[in-house]
């Protein structure tokens, strides 16, 4: 088990959100969208310029910029 942030995950890599290290408005927005600890995610793809990134969680697809992805730590296998 290792913890990395979403920016460094590979396409198709899966993991479980460990923490969302941001408060305030942005933190609330991310959590409203379902990014809470314990959620299983999978990287679905990246835009042509490597940013934003598309994730799959709770059965839907969410896109966010790498700047936001940096704030989310994910536990991945290996």
């Amino acid at each position, binding site marked *: 088990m290792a913890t990395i942030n979403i920016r460094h995950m590979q396409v198709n890599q*899966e993991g479980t959100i460990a*923490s*969302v290290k941001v*408060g*305030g*408005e*942005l*933190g*609330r*927005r*991310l*959590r*409203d*969208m*379902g990014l*809470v*600890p*314990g*959620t*299983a*995610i*999978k990287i*679905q*793809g*990246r*835009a*042509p*310029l*490597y*940013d*934003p990134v*598309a994730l*799959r*969680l*709770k*059965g*839907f*697809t*969410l*896109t*966010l*910029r790498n*700047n*936001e992805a940096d704030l989310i730590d994910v536990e991945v296998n290996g």
Partner: protein
Amino acid sequence: MNFCVALGGNPNAGKTTLFNALTGSRQHVGNYPGVTVDRKEGRYVQNGHDMHIVDLPGTYSLTAYSVEEVVARDFLVNERPRVTINIVDASNLERNLYLTIQFLELGIPTCVALNMIDVARGRGIEIDHNKLSRLLGVPVVPIVARSGFGKKALMDAVETVAEAPLRQPLRVSYGPDLETAIQEMEKMITGGNFLTDLYPSRWIAIKYLENDEQILEKGGGTDPQISDQLEAVTRKVGAHIEETLETYPEAMIADHRYGFISSMLKQGVVKELHDRNRLFLSDRIDKVLVNRFAGPIIMLLVLMGLYQFVFTYSELPVAWCEKAFEWLSDLVSATLSDGLLKSLIVSGVIDGVGGVLGFVPLIMFMFFGIAVLEDSGYLARVAFMLDRVFQIFGLHGSSVMAYIVSGGIAGGCAVPGVMATRTLRSPKERIATLLTAPFMNCGAKLPVFALLIAAFFPQSRARMMFILTLISWGGALLAAKFLRMTVVKGASTPFVMELPPYRLPTFRGLMIHTWERTWQYAKKAGTVILGISVLLWAAMTFPRLPDAQIETYDTQRRGIVSTASPRVVEELEKSAGAQPLSAAAVELKDDLLAVDARQAGAALRHSLAGRIGTGIESVTRWAGFDWRTNIALLGGFAAKEVIVSTLGTAYSLGTVDVEATDSLAVKLAAEPGWRILTAWSLIVFVMFYAPCFVTVVCIARESSWKWGAFSMVFNTSLAFFLAVAVYQAGTALGY
């Protein structure tokens, strides 16, 4: 009983689709989050109940984030509809229920509509709605908003909710630390009757813990003392939680809500046949369409293909329309005797409105193409792919949608485009977007470009339109960058957007979409444009030439006739146009027509519009615009369609030609003052100059009058600068 029913739910859950199904309206539906940005109202009558239905923008949470979410939240929280139908996307249940929980915590009378069960079923998701209803304590009715399935059952449930007494708000447990704080706060709240006439005390406490700005503000305004006490409790428990658990109260609240939902769903509410994050068809399509290498190429090909389709298939019907208006114009010319009335009808009404209506087929094909892209969900992908590029120019992925709605794919309209900027969180990015969105090629500019393309670039219509699209996007992005570096400086906001699954557009949906927008275009031509055309016709007709001057032209004509031989004069007078004239008669006729043309030209110059047009010609000549073009461009401040119609009127008033049945494109191409460079300069100017009047009002309403005025001055200066640059550089290079 009369009562109000609101439609609330996550963006793209199908609220507007249900609203249309209930009320028979044709509000805009599209497959991307944030289509509806303002509330829309309608009526539904059943069993003697007259229900006032309100469609709201989508929101992910009752703590609103962007402007359109504030609209939804304010309505639900402050105006308290009798019943709120909470539209929940069954294929995305867990995240959608997050908002449902918040509705129930607030204690508003709710009825859950479990929408898109067709999609859920297709994905192998079975939902036991009875069980869900028992667990939530409110009715849950499965529906398919698109087909109308379940509508009746849903509205029956709404009736029972409307008649039932208010329920106790739902209690979600937030863990020992927060619960202690909540209890302490509830005591203060009930003790001081703090906002308790509006909201449940527990809800107020939770909102304080969540740092909900709107509630904090409201509380501070009502009773600053209690508000301060509550904030003190929040700070205390916040510090404690941060120290012991390294998290924030609001994060804990969200965790517990999601925990509540998943434990509820685990009690046999949902049966999933597949792994939930497996890739469905939609995701496999995305592997290609948003592929890092193929994606951008496909995007350009889609645009090019759309234009090819539009220009190829609309060419013939547009030609028919032109023919029809020419025929009408000839018919009127032949029946009415010369005079003001004939001039008004032929030059003012038919040339004016006909010039705009003639493009209806083109507009219709364009709208159809855009509807396909929008309903399928492809446009959301375009926003995703372009976000990084837009970020470079100080804009945002959500700006892409505003651009496209404004005419980023030629044919939109800047008014809904400006409204669409509501989904942008940062006011700075929002202003930069709404100031530059009018640079897109809206449906009103399209006829101007189509006309100039037909006149000067007939060989490559689709390609020209494609190039013009790229120019307008490029110009808008550079202008946005400039604005973001000067007047609206500021940090960029996060981009967090849901990507909806692809959906197969329904034929009916596409038809409604196309028809609705085409009808609006035609209706505008028949009303606003007609009015402005008539006004402009009057400005181009009055004041009329003084009698003395008319007399000189009459003298000239008499002089020509008297020098010709009587036989030729008689031949010309008798001729009905059928048999060919002798050479001498043709010469006489041409001489007379030359005088007529000079008189018509002088009359137009003498008119009010002509004087203004000639008055500014010394300036506009730098960009290659003559006085007649100036008249059209001035008309364009009111509405861009008027440019085509006024050019039509100006060139039909200013020239008298018996064979006047040539279309405007042919006339322009034949005009001595016009060449390809003039067309380029005019295209650039029209693309970038002041937004039409309605858009300016809309910009002002969405921001302030200052920005409304700014958009007129800034855009017109920019446009003129660019047009002069094009014209002067082109001339210097010998074009």
